[in-house]
């Protein structure tokens, strides 16, 4: 209470009642306590743990939007671009700027879908997927929308809220289907891929290589994604304030061993051969080719039919379109690279390997006459020549020239008692194992032997027992290895499974051993040549050391090479007529036809050849599924490619030899 009393001037204090004094003191005390608590709390928040709140505030305000790095180009061995980038306009949706969910958004999707020729549901799916991949980033709905559509969107922007058009750089494959499976394609990285070691450090939303070279050399091609830091407000809208971007680092260029001219010719020739076979009533629905430099394993051309247009992956692809690419039923898959992942018996193209094995293993002598008669009889089973031809008892060179099956059946029969001589030679030359090519999808193949047979039998029995089914199809019948298996292998049939690339490696080994007096090299086939800067400067040349060195008996090898040279050049040789008019003295051809039999299907046409040249020797492997005899379809394709490679007039000459 403020009972004011008179005081002397010497005491200037206003007296206050004790009760009031105490209570005001209590109020003041409370105030001091509260101020103390608040100061302590502020000190804790701002001084002690302020750093942490700065970080949280940055998490709030800054959104990192990726700036895609320009992907490196893929160039052929002469520097011609095979894969490059192309700038186009993309229709994009900024999810945060869309009208509210429900009727307004559905209405927008309907109108936009009508404009772009897409279903509203598809637009919604793309937006939702994109939003979950990278938040706050615009989602591409359509690329190459066409000038008409873009004009409409530009002029009536306010009618399409959240829709914008942006120039984007997309991957361009100017040659369409050419080498599509080998080049691969690109796509936004998937959630599973993010976990892969190959993509360590790659951010969600980055476009990475899928399949083929795009995948294998992705870490060189992709560059480093830049970051556009965008400040946003509480509603997620960008605030205009310049934050320093981290510019992207462009990917390096990849120079490959392919020769664009030969590659184009290979694709064209394969199609020509297939059309020829179809004209002859064969289904000829798939095929593949490989051209290899036998000295070092550089892949000069490689292709597989049917293909696909990698540009279509930039659209983006719908599920049904993707299913169509995978194939199914009678339609062969378009994504499969048959040159490295086709698993086939090779027919008679295997015979030089058998011959080499038999000679080196002492199974036969070169001049010994074998295989007389149309058929030979082993264990109650008939093994016959194609068309029941009778070549009489012939020596090795002649047997290769005319492709006598009975000769090689006898070789196979004898070899069976010498252990796995054929199998060992096949493995030594590079068949039945991965070649180590710089592609992701290579298969191993099979060169069957007794141990393999026993293993398959065990697997089949275990499977049948486990699943309670009469057959699992691992082997057609459970039986032990027999002499017949070796006889079939000797002519490239039976359980043999390999692909054009492995055969090309085997022929390359024979070829380079032939060049070097029997000292051969199993090359590692490869496509990568060097990694270059965008301006052409070399970053790194790629080295693919030989898989191993082999020593072949020079005399034996010369006989085998003579046999297949005669087959391609001498009258009566299986592919001699295919090479009519070819200057054998300038570019001697060492070629072997093959016709692989498949149960219930048209024969598979094969051709393997090595063409000698001091500067540009080359090995071709060509196969056409259900294409008929080797000389008929595959060999002419090889000739077309050889003509291109050596600059000779091109001419499709279908051979007449009807040999396996």
């Amino acid at each position: 209470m403020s009972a004011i009393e008179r005081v002397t001037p010497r005491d200037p204090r206003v007296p206050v009642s004790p009760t009031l004094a105490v209570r005001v003191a209590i109020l003041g005390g409370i105030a001091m306590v509260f101020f103390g608590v608040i100061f302590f709390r502020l000190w804790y928040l701002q001084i002690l743990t302020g750093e942490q709140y700065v970080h949280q505030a940055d998490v709030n305000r800054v959104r990192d939007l990726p700036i895609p790095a320009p992907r490196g180009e893929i160039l052929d061995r002469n520097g011609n671009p095979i894969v490059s980038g192309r700038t186009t306009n993309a229709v994009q949706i900024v999810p945060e700027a869309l009208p509210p969910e429900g009727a307004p958004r559905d209405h927008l999707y309907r109108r936009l879908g009508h404009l772009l020729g897409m279903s509203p549901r598809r637009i919604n799916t793309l937006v939702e997927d994109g939003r979950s991949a990278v938040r706050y980033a615009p989602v591409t709905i359509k690329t190459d929308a066409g000038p008409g559509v873009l004009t409409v969107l530009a002029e009536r922007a306010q009618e399409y809220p959240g829709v914008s058009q942006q120039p984007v750089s997309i991957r361009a494959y100017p040659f369409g289907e050419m080498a599509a499976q080998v080049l691969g394609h690109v796509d936004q990285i998937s959630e599973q891929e993010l976990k892969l070691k190959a993509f360590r450090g790659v951010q969600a939303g980055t476009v990475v290589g899928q399949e083929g070279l795009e995948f294998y050399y992705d870490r060189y091609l992709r560059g480093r994604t830049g970051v556009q830091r965008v400040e946003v407000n509480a509603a997620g809208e960008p605030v205009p304030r310049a934050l320093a971007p981290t510019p992207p680092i462009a990917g390096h260029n990849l120079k490959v061993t392919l020769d664009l001219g030969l590659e184009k010719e290979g694709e064209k020739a394969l199609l020509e051969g297939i059309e020829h076979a179809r004209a002859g009533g064969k289904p000829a629905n798939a095929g593949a080719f490989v051209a290899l430099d036998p000295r070092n394993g550089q892949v000069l051309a490689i292709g597989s039919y049917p293909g696909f247009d990698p540009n279509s992956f930039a659209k983006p692809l719908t599920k049904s379109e993707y299913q169509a690419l995978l194939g199914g039923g009678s339609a062969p898959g378009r994504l499969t690279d048959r040159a490295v992942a086709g698993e086939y018996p090779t027919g008679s193209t295997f015979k030089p390997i058998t011959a080499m094995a038999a000679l080196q293993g002492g199974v036969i002598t070169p001049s010994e006459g074998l295989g007389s008669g149309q058929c030979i009889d082993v264990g109650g089973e008939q093994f016959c020549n194609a068309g029941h031809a009778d070549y009489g008892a012939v020596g090795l060179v002649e047997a290769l020239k005319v492709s006598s099956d009975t000769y090689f059946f006898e070789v196979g029969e004898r070899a069976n008692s010498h252990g796995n001589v054929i199998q060992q030679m096949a493995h030594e030359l590079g068949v039945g194992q991965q070649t180590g090519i710089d592609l992701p999808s290579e298969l191993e193949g099979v060169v069957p032997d007794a141990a393999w047979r026993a293993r398959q039998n065990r697997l089949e029995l275990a499977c049948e027992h486990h699943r309670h089914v009469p057959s699992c199809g691992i082997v057609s019948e459970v039986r032990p290895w027999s002499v017949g298996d070796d006889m079939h292998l000797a002519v490239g049939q039976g359980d043999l499974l390999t692909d054009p690339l492995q055969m090309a490696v085997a022929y390359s080994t024979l070829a380079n051993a032939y060049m070097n007096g029997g000292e051969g090299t199993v090359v590692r086939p490869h496509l990568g040549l060097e990694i270059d800067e965008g301006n052409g400067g070399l970053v790194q040349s790629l080295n693919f050391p030989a898989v191993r060195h082999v020593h072949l008996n020079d005399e034996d090898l010369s006989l085998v090479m003579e046999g297949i040279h005669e087959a391609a050049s001498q009258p009566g040789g299986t592919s001699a007529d295919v090479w009519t008019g070819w200057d054998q003295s300038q570019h001697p051809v060492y070629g072997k036809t093959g016709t692989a039999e498949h149960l219930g299907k048209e024969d598979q046409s094969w051709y393997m050849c090595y063409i000698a040249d001091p500067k540009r020797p080359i090995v071709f492997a060509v196969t056409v599924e259900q294409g008929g005899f080797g000389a008929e379809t595959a060999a002419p394709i090889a000739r077309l490619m050889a003509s291109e490679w050596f600059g000779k007039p091109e001419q499709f000459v279908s051979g007449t030899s009807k040999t396996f």
Partner: protein
Amino acid sequence: MPLSPIKPSEEPAALPPSTRPRLPLDPLLALAVIGLGLCSVFTLRQATRNLVPGNPHYYVDRQIIYLVLGGLFMLVLARIDYARLRQFRNAIYAALIISILAVLALGHAARGSTRAINFAFFSFQASELGKVLLIVSLSAFVVERSRSLRERDTTVRVMIAALVPAMFVIAQPDLGSGMVYMVVAYVLLFVAGTSWRHLAALAALVIVSAAFVLVAAPAAGLNVLKPYQVARLTAFLHPSSNPEKEGYQQQESKIAIGAGQKTGRGANASQIPNGFVPESQTDFIFAAVGEQYGFAGAALVLLLYALLIWRALRILVMSKDLFGTLVAAGVAGMLMFQVFVNVGMTIGIMPITGVTLPLMSYGGSSVITTLLAVGLLQSIYVQARASAALKGRVVRN
């Protein structure tokens, strides 16, 4: 005190009222008010620059007008003898109730909640002005019963006189102002000298009813407060459990203040300018201070409030009569409660109650009400000095 402008030797023993010199206002109180007003303007200028698209000065311009207008009211009130207001206590109390009811009725007519009556240029929040009206009328009432302060009847009547407008205000709904009313009444009784027993009983009653309103009643399906109010009141106890809703505002406010660190983020501030803390121009203005000016700025503002509250308590003691003492006590209680609850709310140690930060928060009603209260303090100061001069005494500042 060095700032005492009146030296005893210079002061004549008595002067006729006509020749009495105009006594100066309390300079420290004026300093605190001007300082806080400037802090408010500077903080709002940054914090609200993105709030109204195309008009970055919208809030600052208006706040300056409110501060100037309120300052004029304050000067006028400072020159009036507050003691004269005593005789109008019933009219003042009636004005309080009527204005609050009018807002309630208008709000009801608008089929929604309304805390303000909208005039053409100004929306008038009756509950804010009501704080001052209640302080004056309740103080006068307590003075009247100063001889029976120990009676239970007095305590009950005073509390009911505050509770009636408080209930109406809470129904608007403006929980914060309602709580201020009750606190004002309690502080008045406390300073007037009500017995400890009564005060303790009232405190116990508050605890029991809070428990009832927040826990027991909702459990029984009876919502005294709106569910969002209950959620806001209890959210600070578990801030991370619901960061999307109730806890969000407080969490973002803490981030803003913490990110200010020692000296603030200045132009780098993002939490407030980018709108991560809703109501950062009004209830959460302290978060804006914390982010922009850091610990240094927040400490300066708090020191100004300490000065303000110290002057209020000092003037309380200086007052020439009980009425002045009680009015000053009411103002001091109001300021203390609002500052501590508001700042505590922004730093996560108090519930969100919708109490403004006096003088700092944007808003005409709040600013002018606070300045009126300060005007009352100045008046008490001036009258105390005049009275002391008249009686030949020196009042210590």
